[in-house]
């Protein structure tokens, strides 16, 4: 009788977990994300560091060499420079991960989701978006248009997910091969693999009119989700796009609260000691 009761209890407990079970399509081994995953990034534009970029009209140079159209870096500056960083937050929710498909350019797993921005304190916009997670390193290089998407966070929006199987050293060597075949100023681009990503460096005058060096740092986490993006010019950070969740002002606990709390606890302890001492002395 006891055994039957226990079995019933276990069955009921298992049934309780049914609402939390997620059924998803079998996905490629290179896909590290799942249905329902949510991510958020904070976009920070450091306006005070853009003087040289603007003075040298580096935007035009970059647009000539690595054309990104409306997703270029100058657009990012124009959109956000009037505010203090982080200017905006970019939430992404994965709704469905579809079956792998083979296209003309590459084999990939389509990811459907919602993407948008939050402009603190209360403005926001959300839209449906589709991403492709490609199945290998060379496809990822093609997807990033020979890493040219690295030259602007807006351009990175289409490659927020990388295959988990990507070999960063292979990616860099393929990239350098591509640049060598292109020749000219492209041969001045230096790329280095790093754990979970790569670095792109263009030395001063590498693109002819850049008086300072350009440095781009990009990393993906073990699930293939973009975890770090930084564009620097002359060792000054122009823009970062890194994971960060927007917490509305009214939900933030000010740091002063902790100090006040600790201070009050200290006073209370002292008072208790004094009180105990007085009582002991009286008795």
């Amino acid at each position, binding site marked *: 009788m006891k055994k039957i009761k226990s079995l019933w209890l276990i069955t009921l407990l298992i049934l309780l977990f049914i609402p939390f079970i997620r059924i998803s399509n079998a996905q490629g081994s290179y896909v590290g994300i799942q249905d329902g995953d949510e991510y958020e990034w904070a976009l920070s534009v450091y306006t005070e560091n853009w003087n040289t970029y603007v003075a040298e009209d580096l935007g035009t140079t970059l647009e000539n060499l690595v054309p990104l159209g409306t997703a270029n870096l100058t657009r990012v500056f124009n959109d956000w420079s009037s505010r203090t960083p982080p200017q905006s937050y970019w939430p992404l929710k994965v709704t469905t991960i579809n079956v792998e498909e083979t296209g003309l350019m590459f084999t990939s797993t389509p990811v459907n989701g919602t993407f948008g921005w939050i402009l603190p304190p*209360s403005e926001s916009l959300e839209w449906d978006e589709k991403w492709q997670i490609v199945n290998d390193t060379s496809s990822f290089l093609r997807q990033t248009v020979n890493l040219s998407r690295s030259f602007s966070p807006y351009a990175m929006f289409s490659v927020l997910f990388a295959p988990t199987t990507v070999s960063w050293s292979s990616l860099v060597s393929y990239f350098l091969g591509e640049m060598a075949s292109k020749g000219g100023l492209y041969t001045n681009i230096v790329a280095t693999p790093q754990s979970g990503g790569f670095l792109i460096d263009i030395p001063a005058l590498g693109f002819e009119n850049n008086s300072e060096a350009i440095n781009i740092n990009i990393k993906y986490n073990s699930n293939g989700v973009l975890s770090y993006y930084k564009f620097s010019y002359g060792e000054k950070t122009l823009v970062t796009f890194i994971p960060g969740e927007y917490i509305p002002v*009214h*939900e933030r606990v000010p740091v*002063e*609260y902790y100090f006040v*709390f600790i201070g*009050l606890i200290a*006073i209370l302890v002292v*008072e208790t000691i004094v009180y105990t001492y007085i009582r002991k002395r009286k008795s």
Partner: protein
Amino acid sequence: MKRQRIFAFVKIQIKSLIKVPTALFIVLILPVALILIFGFAFGSIYVEDYGWTRLSGYLFEFMVPGFIAISGLFMAIPVALSFSEDREQGMLKRINTTPTTAAEFMVSHIISNMCMVIIQVAIIFILTFLMGGMRNITPLGILLSFVIMVIFTLSTIGFGLITATVSKSAKAAGGIVWIFLLPQQLLAANLYPLPPETQIVSMFMPLHYASDALSLLFFGVNLTNLRIWWDLMILVVFSLVLIVTGILLFKKYGRA
């Protein structure tokens, strides 16, 4: 501690609070006046991204939590007055000759003031509801508001006791108590937007935590919001510190 004795004192103190015109004005008439005046004046002004919360709503809705907290704060006046008067009239010395302990007397004061605050808050809630200023607060939020105010009362009693200790007469206490009340009323009630530096100053005042938590509850912020619980936690410790300080000081210097 004998419960009967405590409740007998509670009865006496509530009766005396109602009989004293100043106390009656502070406890009942002032909050009503505040709600009516500001309700009619600012009830229809809609503001966006207002104050530190950066929330949107009617200006009156932003003010009500501050008024509730201020009403609770003003309870320090009758406390300071009654303790000073009791001392002046030799009441405390007479109590010492009875079986009533100091703890019983103190607890009765705390309970009677808490009762008055509960009545105050209830009146403000009813009036605010009638004036349409309670659009977002949830029933649980209302309940938590009472809890916050009851805890906050402890700190106001602490202020009252400290005032009674340092004042030589009831008249002096009526003036000195404003040293504690005015800065809090002006800087910590969240009635209007303040610069960040002033907000930091207000964090050293218990009223800030009461009005802060009440503001969040009034705007229907989820009860899982950590800030509400931090407010409550700091308010509890603040109240404990003030009440213990008040009792210690009053015991040592205020009973003469």
